[in-house]
């Protein structure tokens, strides 16, 4: 399989703290790759670097061979690398459907002026966005809530809406930061199935997650980070049997995480 994303010796410092320290790994096309590590290990920072929300102190991220780190979030998004947020981040005062429609921004062919005067292309765009939004809402089982104000959604659905917004941008790589956080067993189960279906849609999915059983079930490969450094990389089986991981991260908790 082809490499879609290359993380090259990525480092990010905040003052004296090195949140991400010389991390390198490759992501293959249509792979589900999880990044795990204890709280404060630098996982979210890593995702922000990849999606160009933060500039690296050194190192770079290549998307299909092209550097995307250190630019700007909207440029990374335009190229196809989009992140969802660890905190549920949505447009609170829009309806669920409006959230998804507005997120089609990158697919517009009409210019802003075109939308203002209402050209034919602009009207076609709006029709297409509406149809695509409905398809995405259906895909994420949000159709019934389409006209609900986003701020009124229950927690589990907020996560789904965050992903719907990400999907609307038509990304090639979607970075999900703790998509299963705060979900009960049933909801996680459904969400895991949903992430699998993302891959079936042709997406490459990177996720940060603390829910170990879910991670083990869903991931093709796992990257483990501790204190900003990569300490292991491999298949779920490799990771479960990796001494460094068990020592540094899993330790005595292995019962709690279902190993």
């Amino acid at each position, binding site marked *: 399989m082809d490499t879609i994303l290359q993380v090259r010796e990525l480092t990010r410092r905040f003052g004296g703290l090195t949140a991400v320290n010389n991390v390198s790994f490759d992501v293959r096309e249509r792979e589900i790759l999880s990044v795990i590590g204890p709280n404060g290990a630098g996982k979210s920072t890593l995702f922000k670097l990849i999606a160009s929300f933060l500039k690296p102190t050194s190192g770079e991220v290549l998307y299909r061979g092209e550097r995307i780190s250190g630019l700007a979030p909207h440029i990374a998004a335009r190229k196809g690398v989009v992140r969802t947020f660890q905190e549920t981040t949505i*447009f609170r005062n829009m309806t669920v459907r409006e959230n998804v429609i507005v997120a089609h921004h990158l697919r517009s062919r009409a210019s802003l002026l075109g939308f203002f005067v209402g050209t034919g292309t602009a009207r076609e765009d709006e029709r297409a966005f509406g149809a695509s939004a409905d398809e995405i809402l259906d895909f994420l089982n949000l159709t019934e809530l389409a006209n609900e104000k986003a701020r009124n959604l229950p927690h589990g659905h907020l996560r789904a809406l965050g992903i719907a917004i990400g999907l609307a941008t038509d990304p090639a790589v979607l970075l999900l930061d703790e998509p299963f956080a705060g979900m009960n067993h049933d909801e996680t189960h459904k969400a895991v199935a949903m992430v699998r279906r993302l891959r079936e849609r042709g997406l490459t999915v990177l996720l940060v997650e603390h829910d170990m059983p879910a991670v083990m079930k869903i991931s093709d490969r796992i990257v483990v980070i501790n204190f900003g450094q990569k300490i292991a990389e491999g298949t779920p089986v490799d990771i479960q049997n990796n001494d460094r991981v068990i020592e540094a991260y899993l330790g005595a908790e292995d019962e709690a995480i279902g190993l």
Partner: protein
Amino acid sequence: MNRTLRLLGVAAFLVAVFVVVPLLISVTGRKDVYYTLTSVALLSIASAGVWLTFYIGRINMGQGAFALMGAYVTAVLVNHYGVAFWWTLPAAGLFCAVASLLIGLPILRLRGVYFAMVSLVLTEVTRLLALALPVTEGAKGITNIPLPGAISLFGLTIVPDFATLENPRIAFYYLAATLMVLCFAGMYRLVHSRIGHICMSLQQNEELASSIGVNIVHLRLIAFAISSFLGGISGATFAAVTQSVYPSSFTVTDSVNFMLNCFLGGLGYVFGPMLGTLTLYFGWNLLFQTGEFQLLIYSSLMIILMLVLPNGLLSLGEGRRKG
């Protein structure tokens, strides 16, 4: 809302502005009201600009600066260079738009109270510049600005020379009302097109907006430029109406009032600034009889209104409408 109902509303509004008001004034003989309504129309245009910057999530207290700039552009071009007022009007708008791009690039990064403070300072800086620069002629300002001339197209006079009119105030009223209608029609379209939704995404969450690919720097600049364009047009027309401009023509107080107009009318409604301007302007004048208590009563009423109606006067109609 129903489409026909909306069209009826627009028609009723246009008839009221262009037919009923002039009729009432001629019946009652209160010609002075023309000046008042002209002011309201022009101030509401400047307020509409402020409203648009609110719409992208910035508290704009710099509109006085752009109104002042626009007024001076017209005054200088007409008096010093003999340019026809009608050309100076778009020139003033464009001048302000370009100036706002240069100013906005560094300051639109700031959020919340920081942007508000810097924009407030901008108003004061512009006043001081007007005092200091040779071209603006210092504290004595630029006076005796000639009235707008005629506009003719293919030998046909569309707009008569204002100086030949018996009462140019009526002509200014029609001019201001036309500008206001154009401004709010444009704003309505903007907000109800996709652009409005993108602006709203910016207001609600800039990080998320940029993650869906919106160039937030770009969009903020566009909104600020449109806002300042409107400020410039408003100021330029004021200069023509009063035939003068001074450094104190638009001050910090005006900047604050533009913002209050938006608050009062309702930040969620395109026509909020229009209603807000009308209410505040007349409210302030009505309180004139209370003498020294004018400001006190005015301020207290404002506070109460904002507590009772945090979403503005237009939110009163919200119960009937859905969504």
